[in-house]
């Protein structure tokens, strides 16, 4: 199975461990990722706030480049996924817009992309039994708080799961042998793009999420979005927490379960160290 791969900027810099682990687990599961040549900015949080044309032109050009590699596109970053899926949804339902956008990007995107988050690839395109067979180090004794954030579950046209009580991550973690906690902060705001502009709001909002994970005795939080990861991981020493909570990409936990080498997953890049906890659980 082959996918065009759109890593997005976060996975190239701040969240390179998400990139590394995504490539590693998908390769292990027999999924080939081919990075889209010359991919560029999806527009992130700026374009759609400032310019109506750029809002769709940037994702559309990326999609046009992507489908030349493969109609099926893997997008691990929740923000990129959100931008690409929203534009794609608009273009698939508005011929006039598609025509205008194609003129402005000087390309001929047909609205034929299938955009998927790696979670969807793993859960929908692969057989559960095949995945189970490949688990060599089940995440037994590990209590995981699955945190989805906002961009994976809203709005409906870009969502990969239920907006109020998503369960995809929980299902995957359960399959890997981990226990997941039933908590109320799965989709609570982490502070999003305020990380640099207004650190205090991140400390407040992400702090609440972390506190509830601690109350529920979670060993770690599993995420599927670079921004969620940053906000939860970055300022824990400035928050009023009983203890620190390692924040792990789901691909890292999956990688460990699949028996991949700890160092190859680059888990040590996180601010809050996870190794001690993972050692204790016998997962390293």
């Amino acid at each position, binding site marked *: 199975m082959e996918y065009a791969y759109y890593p997005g900027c976060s996975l190239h810099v701040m969240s390179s461990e998400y990139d590394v682990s995504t490539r590693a687990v998908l390769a292990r599961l027999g999924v080939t990722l081919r990075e889209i040549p010359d991919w560029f900015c999806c527009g992130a949080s700026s374009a759609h706030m400032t310019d109506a044309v750029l809002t769709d032109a940037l994702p559309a050009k990326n999609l046009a480049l992507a489908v030349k590699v493969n109609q099926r596109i893997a997008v691990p970053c929740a923000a990129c996924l959100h931008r690409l899926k929203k534009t794609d949804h608009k273009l698939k339902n508005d011929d006039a817009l598609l025509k205008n956008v194609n003129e402005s990007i000087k390309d001929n995107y047909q609205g034929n992309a299938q955009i998927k988050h790696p979670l969807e690839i793993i859960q929908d395109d692969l057989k559960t039994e095949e995945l189970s067979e490949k688990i060599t180090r089940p995440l037994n004794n590990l209590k995981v708080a699955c945190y989805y954030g906002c961009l994976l579950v809203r709005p409906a046209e870009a969502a990969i799961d*239920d*907006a*109020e*009580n998503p369960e995809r991550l929980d299902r995957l973690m359960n399959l890997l042998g981990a226990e997941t906690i*039933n*908590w*109320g*902060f799965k989709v609570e705001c982490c502070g999003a793009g305020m990380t640099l502009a207004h650190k205090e709001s991140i400390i407040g909002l992400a702090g609440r999420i972390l506190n*509830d994970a601690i*109350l529920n005795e979670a060993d770690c939080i599993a995420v599927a979005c670079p921004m969620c990861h940053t906000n939860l991981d970055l300022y824990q020493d400035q928050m009023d927490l009983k203890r620190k909570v390692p924040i792990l990409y789901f691909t890292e936990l999956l990688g460990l379960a699949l028996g991949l080498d700890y160092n190859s997953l680059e888990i040590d890049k996180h601010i809050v160290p996870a190794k001690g906890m993972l050692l204790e659980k016998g997962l390293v």
Partner: protein
Amino acid sequence: MPRTGVFVCHCGSNIAGKVDVETVAAKALNFDRVVFSTTYKYMCSQPGQEVIKKAVRDNNLDRIVVAACTPNLHGKTFQRCIKTVGLSPYLSEMASIREHCSWVHTDPDEATGKAIELVRLATAKVRKNVALLPLNIPVTRRALVIGGGIAGIQSALDIAAAGFEAVIVEKEPSVGGRMAQLDKTFPTLDCSACILAPRMVEVATNEKVIIHSYSKIEKITGSVGSFEVQIKKKARYVDLGKCTGCGTCTEKCPVKVDSEFNLRLSTRKAISTPFPQAVPNVPVIDPHHCRYLTLGKCGVCQKVCQAGAVNYEDKDEIIIEKVGAIIAATGYDLFDPKKYGEYGGGRYRDVITGLQFERLINASGPTGGEITRLSDGKTPKTIVFIQCVGSRDEQKGKPYCSKICCMYTAKQTILAKEHIPDVQCYVFYIDIRAGGKNYEEFVKRAQTDYGAVYIRGRVSKLYEQEGQIMVKGMDTLLGEEVEIPADLVVLATAIVPRREARTLAQKIGLSYDQHAFYNEAHPKMAPVENLTLGIYLAGACQAPKDIPDSVAMASAAAAKICGLFSRDFLSIDPIVASVAETCCVGCNTCVAICPFKAISMEIRKDRTGQERQVATVNTSLCQGCGTCLPNCRSRCISLNNWTTDQLYAEVMTI
């Protein structure tokens, strides 16, 4: 030679503001057989009708056209008007120059032009109208009441009091409806069961009332005055005549099932009555859970029954009742809060609905009147009530206000405080709608005397934390976020029609709105009638309604029916189809196509003694819809005063 008068109405500025009525009247004088025309400010008013009467007398008019609103609104008004001066009511026509002209067009010239054309058509048609005689049909003086809740009970009692029979069909094993599930009633805090039970007993013992409980409407045919109702009496497996209601069978039955009556807050037995005061006080066996009926083993209830009333061989039975009028009193269901993922979507045990709360505080409820949490059985010290769950929410729920929730939530805060003196209640609301006698005062009392804290705003989210339900919301008056740790959360879910409302309506030809609430014939002037003649509405099947409104509506519907039953014959419009038997080829097309099943085939002998079949119209069933006309291949069906000839006359005059 017909002499037609044309009367153009201003309808205040409704018509005259757009249509040049004087021009319409002037032009009308040029139309064929029109000898008089005039305008008046309100033609339907008493002086307006005098204008018509005077013109008829002075000008020797023999037919009239009123250019005004639609015949639905005032057709009858003008028919009655000319009847008083000796003209046949059927020699009048209306041209709808309000609904079809002034209200829908913006350009005055075009509107006036169209109004003139509509008047021209009406004059062409009325020229060929015939002075029909009204049809008299016999009336079966018994009424069917669908639903045995408080509305159904009240209307049956009122009809019986007037000396007519009423037949109640109730789908549950007992009458009583929603009111039987409630604890106390606002704003007087009367015990619901205490005021309902006497009515239930009264209806059960009234000679004029027949109750078919645990029964469903299968099919209704016929029309006003003579309906035929097929009722399916579901197998109870307990003989209504023999059972003494001793309750031993229920006591000994080994099978426990979730109780529907207690909204799954407790269990019931496989043989049971829904509640202790049930009428009839005869249990039913639930065939899906009874051990004997599913596995062929057990039979305990039959063994212990002293009266020998248990009969495992019981079968569903179809019975026929003939009635002259029908009251739909089917009541309401509650919106399923599962759609609200942010309120847990049913995942949190300590988030319950208002009706579940009623069962919890009810002395005969699953906890004997103790308010306890379903999760751990503890007594809640903080209760949060959330109003408008599903109401006034176009995104996830219904656009309408459910009307009763503000009141019952206030009541529940009062009752909670009476049950648990140190409880603190919070109510999240959008607006408080407490229109009604002593209603606003009651809500005020909940706040001042019982300490309920009202917070104006929506709850954005509920989540569990350390054994409590965290209620996160907005206080829009303070402009602040609030978070309240609650022990129990009660959702005031929207009132929706019964799940079966649509199917039932389609079975009996009731019209209903987009939510499946049954339509009244006119929102102001005919609020208890349905558009289908002979069918009346009572209670919350028409719109969300509280008990006093339901009872009032039930009595009103009963009064309408008593009026109908006060005559031996019912006079109905003679606008019905008829068949010219000489040219009918007996093709059967009309029989198949008639939506009212009013046409049937009959055998006729000609002079040579040869037999052939011809169509015949049952005039009491025919509604004059005209569907058969264009489908008749030999063009032998005709509709009184809507003949092909008349329609051609209209078309040819354009």
